[in-house]
C-alpha cells in the first residue's frame, strides 16, 4: 500500500525513470513545452487495454501548452451529445483551471489507451457511456496533472508543495506572494513523473461540475468553421458514390457503365462487394454518373416481402411462446385466476436514424502503404481493423482521424464498420491513386438499412379484485443485430439478445408473476441500435400497459406507479419531481390531456409528464413536456437539459410519423418528404429538472428518448378516452372522438 509520502517520492524527474522515457521522447520533448503531451504511438502502448484500476494517465488525456491552454484529448465521438464539453469539464475541475483556457481535440485511434472502459478493449462511443466510463479516469488524470504542476512550482520556488494552491488556472504560493500560470510551468511539469495515487477533489469544492459552462463547440458550429468529414479536402481528392442493391440481400448480376462513364467528371466505375462504385472529380459529377448507371440485380436471396406480410408473421409468432427472457412466479396461472385481464398489442416499424450529415468518410492510401482516414468515427477500433483487413495492411499502418459528426443516433456505430469498410473496398479496387471521399446521399441513408428493427409486442396483464397487478405476460418478436457481431459474446445471454428485451425483461414494477419471451426472427434487412435501442419499443409497451392497468383498476396513473415502485427510489424521485413541477393532478380543459411515464435506460431514470391538445377536427399538438432526470452527478446540467430536450424531440418525431416500409422488398421512403422529420412547429415546450445526486454519472445521450412516446400516448388517452398502442401513432383514428 502506497502512502502519501511514498507517493510524493514517486513524483521524480522523468530522467530518473527509464520506463517513462518513451513518454518524453515523443512530442512532449520535441515541443519542449507540453506538460503531459500525448505521445501515443503504437510503440509505446500499455500492455493491456486500460481499466479503471490502472494508474492515472495524464499523458494520454491532457496537454498543457506554454500559451497556457489546456487541451483535453477526447477518446469519444461527439455527434452532438456534448461529451466533449463534459469530458473537458471533468479535467478542468481537477486542475482548477479557468474555463477560458480549456480546449479539446479528438484522440487518435488506440484501443489500449482510449478504450471505452465499459466496452473492454474497444475504443468506441455508444450506450450513453462517454461520461460514465470516463468519470474516474479523467478525474484521476486531472488530479495527477495538477500534482505535476504543483511539484514543478514547488521545486522552482523552493517551497513546500502543500503550501501551493491552484484556483482559476493560477498557481499560487500565498506566503511568498508568488504566482504563475499553468503555461509558465508547462515545460518543467512535463518532466515530473506522473503520480500513481491521486485524490480527486471533494465534491464540495467543485467549481465547474454542476455549473453551466459554455459548450466548446458553439462558436465553430455557428460560424461554419467546424470541420466534419463531409468537409475534408485533400489534394486531388475524388468523390465516390455507390449504387447499392435496392433490395436487402440483393447482389449485382451485371451492370452497364457506358452512360455513367460518359458523364463529364466521371473517372471510373467498378464493382465492389457492396455494389457498384462511381468515382468522379466532384460530388455533383458522382451523383450524375451514378444516376446514369444501369445495374441488374440478382434478388434470389433478397428480402422480397412487404411490411404488412412481415407484421402478419410477427403477430402469428406473438401468439406463441418464445425464448424465455424473464420468469418470476407463474404468469399463466395468475392470468387464469385474475379478476380482470387487460391486453395490448404494439407494433413498431423499421426506423432510420437519418443523421443530418449523410454518411461519408475520406481515405488516403500513401506511397509507403500507410493509410489515413477521416470520419465521424464511432467505433474506432472496429473501423481501424476493418480498413486494415480490407487493404491488407497492419492496423498500425492505419491512422484514423475522428472528426465532429453531424449526428449519428447509433447509425455510425456499426459492428462491421459498414460504410468505412465500403470506402476501404473502393480504395482497394480503384486504379486512381488519389484520396477518395465516399459520400452517401440522403436517399442512400434512408434506403440503406441498419434500421431500428421492427417489433411486435403482445402483452396480457391481470388485476385482482383490489386492482393489484397479479400477472404479466409479454411476448416480443423482432430481429437481433447482435448475433453474428463482435458484441455477441458480451450481450447475448442464454440465447437472448439483451438489447431486444431491455426495458421489458427488467420491468421495475412489483408484479409477483411475470414472464417475458422473445422470438428471434431473421431477415436480410439490416438493423442496428437506434438512440436508446430496445427501450425505443419496450418503454412504450410497458408504460402504456401500466397506464391502462391503472385506468382499469380505477386508480390515478401516478399513484398506481408509485405504489408498485416502492423498491425503486430513483424512479419514485423522478416521478414525484416531474409531477410536482408539472402541477400534476390539476384538471385539464376539454380537448387537452395529460399523461405520465417513467423509464430507466443506461442507468439513468427519466420521468415525463406530457400535455397534449387533441382537436375534434383531428388537430394534434404536444404542448409541453416536463421531464425529471436522475443521471447521477450532473457534470454539465445545461448539456443534460439539451440532451433531454433533443431526446424528447427525437422520440416524438418518430412517434408522430416515422416509419420505413417495404413494398415487395423495396424501401418506400427516399428522402425527407417520405420520412418526415420533426419540425419546429411540432416541438413542444420542454422543461427539464435534474434530481441532485452524488452517485457517479450515468448516461444522458439516450435516456430522454424512451419515455416521451408513452407519456404522450397516455395523454392522448386522457384527452380522448382512446387508447393507442403502436407507433407511429395513427392520429387519424382520433378524428371525431
Amino acid at each position, binding site marked *: 500500500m502506497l502512502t502519501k509520502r511514498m507517493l510524493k517520492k514517486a513524483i521524480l524527474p522523468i530522467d530518473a525513470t527509464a520506463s517513462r522515457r518513451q513518454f518524453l521522447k515523443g512530442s512532449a520533448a520535441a515541443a519542449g513545452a507540453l506538460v503531459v503531451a500525448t505521445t501515443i504511438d503504437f510503440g509505446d502502448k500499455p500492455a493491456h487495454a486500460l481499466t479503471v484500476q490502472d494508474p492515472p494517465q495524464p499523458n494520454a488525456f491532457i496537454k498543457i501548452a506554454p500559451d497556457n491552454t489546456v487541451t483535453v484529448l477526447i477518446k469519444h465521438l461527439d455527434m452532438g451529445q456534448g461529451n466533449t464539453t463534459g469530458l473537458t469539464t471533468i479535467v478542468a475541475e481537477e486542475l482548477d483551471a479557468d474555463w477560458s483556457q480549456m480546449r479539446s481535440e479528438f484522440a487518435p485511434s488506440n484501443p489500449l489507451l482510449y478504450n471505452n472502459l465499459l466496452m473492454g478493449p474497444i475504443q468506441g462511443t455508444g450506450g450513453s457511456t462517454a461520461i460514465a466510463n470516463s468519470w474516474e479516469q479523467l478525474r484521476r488524470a486531472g488530479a495527477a496533472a495538477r500534482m505535476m504542476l504543483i511539484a514543478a512550482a514547488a521545486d522552482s520556488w523552493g517551497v513546500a508543495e502543500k503550501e501551493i494552491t491552484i484556483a482559476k488556472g493560477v498557481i499560487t504560493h500565498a506566503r511568498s506572494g508568488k504566482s504563475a500560470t499553468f503555461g509558465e510551468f508547462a515545460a518543467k511539469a512535463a518532466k515530473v513523473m506522473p503520480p500513481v495515487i491521486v485524490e480527486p477533489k471533494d465534491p464540495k469544492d467543485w467549481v465547474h461540475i454542476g455549473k453551466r459552462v459554455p459548450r466548446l463547440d458553439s462558436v465553430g*458550429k*455557428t460560424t461554419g468553421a467546424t*470541420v466534419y468529414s463531409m468537409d475534408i479536402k485533400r489534394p486531388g481528392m475524388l*468523390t465516390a458514390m455507390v449504387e447499392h442493391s435496392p433490395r436487402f440481400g440483393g447482389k449485382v448480376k451485371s451492370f452497364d457503365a457506358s452512360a455513367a462513364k460518359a458523364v463529364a467528371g466521371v473517372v471510373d466505375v467498378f464493382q465492389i462487394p457492396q455494389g457498384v462504385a462511381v468515382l468522379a472529380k466532384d*460530388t455533383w459529377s458522382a451523383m450524375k454518373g451514378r444516376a446514369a448507371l444501369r445495374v441488374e440485380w440478382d434478388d434470389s436471396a433478397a428480402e422480397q416481402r412487404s411490411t404488412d406480410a412481415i407484421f402478419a408473421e410477427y403477430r402469428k409468432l406473438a401468439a406463441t411462446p418464445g425464448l424465455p427472457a424473464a420468469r418470476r412466479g407463474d404468469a399463466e396461472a395468475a392470468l387464469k385466476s385474475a379478476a380482470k385481464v387487460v391486453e395490448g398489442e404494439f407494433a413498431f416499424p423499421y426506423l432510420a436514424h437519418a443523421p*443530418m450529415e449523410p454518411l461519408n468518410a475520406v481515405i488516403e492510401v500513401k506511397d509507403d502503404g500507410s493509410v489515413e482516414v477521416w470520419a465521424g468515427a464511432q467505433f474506432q477500433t472496429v473501423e481501424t481493423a476493418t480498413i486494415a483487413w480490407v487493404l491488407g495492411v497492419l492496423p498500425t499502418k492505419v491512422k484514423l482521424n475522428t472528426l465532429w459528426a453531424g449526428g449519428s443516433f447509433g447509425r455510425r456505430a456499426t459492428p462491421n464498420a459498414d460504410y468505412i469498410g465500403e470506402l476501404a473496398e473502393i480504395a482497394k479496387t480503384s486504379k486512381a491513386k488519389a484520396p477518395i471521399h465516399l459520400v452517401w446521399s440522403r436517399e442512400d441513408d434512408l434506403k440503406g438499412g441498419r434500421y431500428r428493427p421492427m417489433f411486435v409486442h403482445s402483452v396480457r396483464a391481470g388485476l385482482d379484485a383490489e386492482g393489484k397487478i397479479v400477472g404479466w405476460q409479454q411476448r416480443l418478436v423482432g430481429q437481433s443485430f447482435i448475433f453474428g457481431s463482435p458484441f455477441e459474446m458480451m450481450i447475448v445471454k442464454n440465447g437472448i439478445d439483451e438489447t431486444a428485451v431491455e426495458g421489458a425483461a427488467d420491468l421495475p414494477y412489483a408484479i409477483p408473476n411475470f414472464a417475458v419471451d422473445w422470438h428471434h426472427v431473421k431477415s436480410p434487412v439490416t438493423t442496428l441500435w437506434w438512440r436508446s435501442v430496445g427501450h425505443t419499443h419496450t418503454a412504450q409497451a410497458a408504460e402504456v400497459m401500466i397506464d391502462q392497468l391503472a385506468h382499469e383498476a380505477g386508480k390515478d396513473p401516478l399513484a398506481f406507479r408509485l405504489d408498485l415502485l416502492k423498491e425503486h427510489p430513483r424512479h419514485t424521485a423522478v416521478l414525484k419531481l416531474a409531477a410536482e413541477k408539472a402541477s400534476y393532478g390539476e384538471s385539464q380543459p376539454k380537448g387537452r390531456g395529460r399523461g405520465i411515464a417513467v423509464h430507466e435506460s443506461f442507468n439513468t431514470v427519466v420521468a415525463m409528464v406530457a400535455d397534449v391538445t387533441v382537436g375534434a377536427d383531428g388537430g394534434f399538438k404536444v404542448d409541453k413536456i416536463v421531464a425529471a432526470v436522475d443521471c447521477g452527478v450532473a457534470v454539465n446540467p445545461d448539456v443534460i437539459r439539451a440532451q433531454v430536450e433533443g431526446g424528447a424531440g427525437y422520440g416524438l418525431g418518430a412517434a408522430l410519423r416515422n416509419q420505413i416500409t417495404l413494398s415487395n422488398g423495396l424501401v418506400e421512403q427516399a428522402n425527407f418528404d417520405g420520412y418526415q422529420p420533426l419540425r419546429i412547429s411540432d416541438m413542444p415546450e420542454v422543461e427539464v429538472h435534474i434530481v441532485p445526486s452524488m452517485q457517479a454519472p450515468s448516461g444522458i445521450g439516450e435516456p430522454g428518448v424512451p419515455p416521451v412516446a408513452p407519456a404522450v400516448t397516455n395523454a392522448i388517452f386522457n384527452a380522448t378516452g382512446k387508447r393507442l398502442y403502436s407507433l407511429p401513432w395513427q392520429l387519424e383514428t382520433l378524428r371525431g372522438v
Partner: protein
Amino acid sequence: MFRVKSFSFEYAMPQDKDSAMPTLSINNRPFDLDVDPAMPLLWAIRDHAGLTGTKYGCGAALCGACTVHLDGEPVRACQIQVRDAIGRKVTTIEGVEGKVAAAVQGAWQSLDVVQCGYCQSGQIMTAIGLLSQNPKPTDADINNAMDAIVCRCATYVRIRAAIHEAAKNLG
C-alpha cells in the same frame, strides 16, 4: 401538420450565364469556377469555392441545411444552378455580417443552441433572413419561417429561444 415553405425567385437572367468558366460573387469575393453552369450552387460553393460551412443534407429542398443568401434572401443552394447565381451576391455562413447576423450568432452561442451543429448554418441563415424582414417575430412567425429547416437533434426549443433573444437584443 407541417408545411415546407416554397421559395420563388424572380430576377433577370444574366447575359453570361452559360459561359464556360462562371464567375460567382461569394461573400464579396469573386470566384472563377471551372464548373458546369447547371451544377447546383451548393456543390459549387462546397467542392469548388471550398466554403464548407454550407451543408448538404437532402439535395431536394427538403431540409434547408444548404440555405445561403442570394442578394440577401435565404434560398436553398441545392436548388439554384450556378448559371442563375451569376451576377448576384451569394452570402454563406462564413461571410454573413451585420448587426442582425451578429445578434443571431451571439444568441445561438449564449444559449448553446447547437448539438451536432450540422444543420445550424441553415438555421442561422434562415433566422437572419427572418429577423431582417421581421424584427419582432411571434412564435407563429418563427414556425412559418423556420419550419422547413430540419434539425435531427431537435434543438428547436433553443432555436426558438435564440430568435426571441436576438430580436430582444436588436431592440
